[in-house]
């Protein structure tokens, strides 16, 4: 049959049509923010403008950015609500710390130890993600959310009864009680007391590399066969099945990759402090990461980066409010949510902005008038 193109087809005007995601632009913005921020902060630090307080937050900021980006893979790209991200962070942190302590027995080259530990943390977290992912994938919406919450709590509960340490140079493991005959200094993980005596190796540069890697993986995944399948299932599960997408497989994929990246970030976090307690990875931390994602715009990678940075610094800047610090934080959080999501207020801000902003023609690239679609995004 001849290559005949169907004629006279009217597809209607594209007046109201919206351009899709511009991956290149998204990546450019994300990398620019990360690298630009890094250079800016390094310069400011060198010039002595940035205080200890902010400098001390460089690594945690990077970790939270990375966590926000990886959680976005589940919440934004796969469209499932996860309330247990801190659990994967915990798995990565503790297994990474364990690995670093073991490696320190025989190695001295820190960058290599750090990389191996982070990979190990990612590996263990991905296993946790896989185990958790399998049963929950049949669930939907808020039910899936509660199960992720439950798993996050289970992981933390188990961390409370895990003991690792060296006895005579050998790695020993115990469950539910202390290890027999162990010296204080040879403890690695002591149940609820957590990991102590960790050699801190993390630095801002490592943090940046982690962020870049996470963003690289997530953005690449988004713009690939797998990412498209994951997003398709988010947009319309039934249609996805009808074109032969294995829903469970792709959801699991998003979950596991996200868990692995969270594990990596958790590991860097763990190696930034000489001590780490399991309580750190409770529900509040999971929620905190979720707040980054939602505030940055669900599915928006660079939005998440900015939100994570901002919300990590914010409570610190509120120290001047002394006793009212956390109260202020809570109020700001509520107000910001209402301002960014309430349709009436939003349109007012937009109108205000339109007055100020130089006129641009047409829908610029990357424009996404989401209107009332927030509901769908969240569902």
């Amino acid at each position, binding site marked *: *049959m001849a290559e*005949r*193109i*169907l*004629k*006279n*087809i*009217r*597809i*209607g*005007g*594209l007046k*109201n*049509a*919206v*351009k*899709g*995601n511009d991956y290149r632009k998204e990546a450019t913005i994300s990398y620019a923010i990360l690298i630009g921020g890094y250079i800016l902060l390094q310069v400011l630090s060198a010039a002595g403008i940035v205080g200890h307080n902010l400098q001390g937050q460089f690594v945690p900021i990077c970790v939270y950015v990375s966590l926000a980006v990886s959680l976005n893979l589940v919440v934004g790209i796969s469209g499932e609500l996860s309330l247990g991200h801190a659990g994967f962070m915990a798995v990565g942190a503790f297994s990474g710390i364990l690995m670093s302590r073991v490696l320190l027995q025989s190695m001295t080259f820190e960058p290599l130890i750090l990389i191996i530990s982070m990979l190990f943390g990612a590996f263990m977290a991905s296993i946790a993600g896989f185990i958790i992912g399998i049963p929950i994938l049949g669930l939907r919406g808020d039910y899936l959310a509660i199960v992720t919450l439950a798993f996050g709590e289970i992981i933390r509960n188990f961390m409370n009864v895990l003991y690792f340490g060296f006895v005579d140079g050998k790695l020993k493991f115990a469950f539910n009680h202390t290890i027999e005959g162990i010296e204080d200094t040879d403890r690695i993980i002591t149940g609820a007391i957590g990991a102590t005596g960790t050699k801190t190796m993390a630095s801002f540069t490592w943090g940046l590399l982690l962020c870049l890697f996470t963003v690289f*993986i997530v953005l*690449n*995944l988004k713009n*690939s*066969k*797998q*990412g*498209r*399948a994951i*997003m*398709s299932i*988010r*947009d*319309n599960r*039934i*249609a*996805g*099945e*009808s*074109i*032969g*997408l*294995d*829903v469970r497989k792709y959801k699991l*994929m998003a979950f596991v*990759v996200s868990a692995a990246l969270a594990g990596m970030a958790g590991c860097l976090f763990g190696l930034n402090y000489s001590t780490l307690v399991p309580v750190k990875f409770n529900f509040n931390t999971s929620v905190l990461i979720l707040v980054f994602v939602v505030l940055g715009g669900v599915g928006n990678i660079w939005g998440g980066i900015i939100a994570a940075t901002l919300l990590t610094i914010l409570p610190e800047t509120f120290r001047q409010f002394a006793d009212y610090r956390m109260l202020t934080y809570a109020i700001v959080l509520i107000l910001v949510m209402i301002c960014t999501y309430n349709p009436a207020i939003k349109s007012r801000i937009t109108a205000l902005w339109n007055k100020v902003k130089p006129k641009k023609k047409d829908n610029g690239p990357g424009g996404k008038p989401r209107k009332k679609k927030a509901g*769908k995004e969240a569902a």
Partner: protein
Amino acid sequence: MADYKKEKGDALYEISDPGHAYENRQEIYYNDNVGGRAVFVDSKEQYGSDEPYDDSVYIPEKDRDKAPILEVKGLGIDFGGLTAVDNFNLALGRTEIGGLIGPNGAGKTTIFNMLTKVYEPTRGEIFFDGKSTKGMNTVDINKAGMARTFQNIRLFDKLTVEENIKVALHHTTNYGLIDGMLHTPKYRHEEFRIRKEAMKYLKIFGMTKTADYRAGSLPYGAQRRLEIMRALATKPKLLLLDEPAAGMNPSETSELMETIKEIRDRFQIGVFLIEHDMSLVMGICEGIVVLNYGRTIAKGSAKDIQSNPKVIEAYLGKSRGKMEEEEKNEDIEEALSKGKLESAPSGKPDRKEDE
């Protein structure tokens, strides 16, 4: 239009049996309309006096030398205690365009859902491409070569048009997760290839300039078209279209008719469609099944259907159908052959089968 036999009781065909070469089978396939099961009988004398209609299946002549792409035997489904569809039988030729019509709520979409295993049928068997689909799920069905569209359009709204098609090409996209995460040369090569392929589909449908737009933001007609394209991109042997012309104006509908025929000709596949727009159904369908209250009330060519009193009754209601049959017949025939006839006796709004 393809040639096929119209005479009652004439259009018998030889069916294939899974596992056997169809040539070996000489049985004649009839259907026991009352018993709820497909039976094999030697003659049609078994039918009682209660106005039996011939339930044998019409297959266009061009397809008779090949095994039918789809065979359905005694298909039925119950929701709770309610029988939504009962004793549905069908055979569809390799390159046939078949139509499934009936008033709203007759169970048409339910049949599509059973064929694609969105619902598991309560009774009956489906043979697709000679194989039973028992135990398959929606995904398997698609992999086996059946693709569909939906009554209420189901696109991947936030993805672009191009991505929508690329997703459908994922089975033929040959790279793994690691390639996808790291964008290896293999990834680049494959992406380049499927992009070209996706553009080919867009070109066929004249939608290249929409490639970068979000599917959810397209005009209605374009969305319908994209859904068909997406189904085609999975390289099916049979395409199920659920009300493809819904919401289209007459000129768009006639374009669509051309498109469907073009698709069949170009890809050499079977098409089975649900439609309320009689101009479309009568215009392109080579065989038509009429459904009412979950039961088949008529089968045959467009002409058979147009003159079938049961069909008229189903569309207009019993009392009117009987009392004014004489007077109305012509009008309805006209309506059936020319225009849309969407009102159902129940008058219920378009029901989407659920639960």
